[in-house]
């Protein structure tokens, strides 16, 4: 009898040890609680193609409206706002609804000189509520409400004004735009 009891105990221990090893060796399960925040660039902020005699500006709103000053629109890729998507992956398959709060900061160099063309970007705008007009470096709060799936997303558009001074010739101008995001809170509803 004692021999049988010891045998069964060893069997239980072995089964549990095997189960534990399997769980910990499976990457999906081992990381199932690793929440992850990412920002994806969907579309560049495009000011299109235009001709300028000396200096001028073009403003592209977050909604896509274009306002020109002293520039002439030309054939080429059309002006359009940039778009980014914030992705929150809660890291597990739980479907408990949560509100996710993310803080984002958009930054860009104040001025870029490409050969004979100086370009300055200003008047940043987004289509996020309460953040229609913002400045570079300003913290913007973005909420993903009622997140019920493993991955929840929120996209937003970015517009701005580009001031151009042309000293000679013409050129393609590229200004990098950084978007930094930080997870502030995940609140159960």
């Amino acid at each position, binding site marked *: 009898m004692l021999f049988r009891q010891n045998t069964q105990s060893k069997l239980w221990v072995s089964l549990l040890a095997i189960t534990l090893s399997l769980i910990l060796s499976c990457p999906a399960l*081992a990381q199932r609680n690793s929440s992850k925040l990412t*920002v994806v660039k969907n579309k560049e902020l495009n*000011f299109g193609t235009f001709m300028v005699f000396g200096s001028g500006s073009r403003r592209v709103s977050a909604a896509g409206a274009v306002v020109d000053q002293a520039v002439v629109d030309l054939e080429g890729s059309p002006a359009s706002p940039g778009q980014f998507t914030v992705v929150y992956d809660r890291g597990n398959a739980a479907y408990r609804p949560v509100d996710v709060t993310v803080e984002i900061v958009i930054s860009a160099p104040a001025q870029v000189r490409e050969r004979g063309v100086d370009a300055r970007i200003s008047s940043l705008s987004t289509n996020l509520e309460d953040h229609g007009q913002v400045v570079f470096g300003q913290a913007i709060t973005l909420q993903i409400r009622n997140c019920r799936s493993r991955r929840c997303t929120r996209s937003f558009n970015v517009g701005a004004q580009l001031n151009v001074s042309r000293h000679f010739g013409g050129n393609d101008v590229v200004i990098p*735009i950084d978007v930094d995001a930080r997870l502030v809170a995940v609140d159960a509803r």
Partner: protein
Amino acid sequence: MKASLPERLDVLILALTIGLWPDPSKAQDIAKSQGQAETRVVAPLSTALREALSFGSISVGAGNGGSASVSWDGTTRFLGVSQAHCSGRSDCSAHRAVFEVTGESERTYSVSLPRSVVARGERTGSALAVDSLEMRSLNTSARSGGRLDKAGKDLFFVGGSVNVPFGTATDIYRAELPVTVFYN
């Protein structure tokens, strides 16, 4: 006899629980993405007249009128008029207009010409109609524009016709030819 759980089961359950518990060190709560603002700034077009359109020195025969035509490719045609014999290339001879265009390389442009213009005699103020104005570019065969080459340059040529009625006063006739050149 029922099988009993081992005494160390509580330790195993604890280990299992710890293994599945959320690990704060694995959470990634900051993210970064880089996009860009992009644009193409194009230098304005520049157009310069290299040679004016000229019908040369012509005369009409007694009792009738005539016409003189200069094509965009430089060929001339005279009907009912006689052309003066000119030595070398001068204002005396008929020739097409030549314009030089500079701007952004490989970009196309359009040229707008009037349907006709009126030339006025410098001395008499008499009018002569100049019509059938047409152009061609050196780089393309388009009828209303051209394409700048890799160096951002092109030439275009303008031809036309002048009608000389019977009784036209002897004079030097000049007209302003407005030419509008713009990017497509």
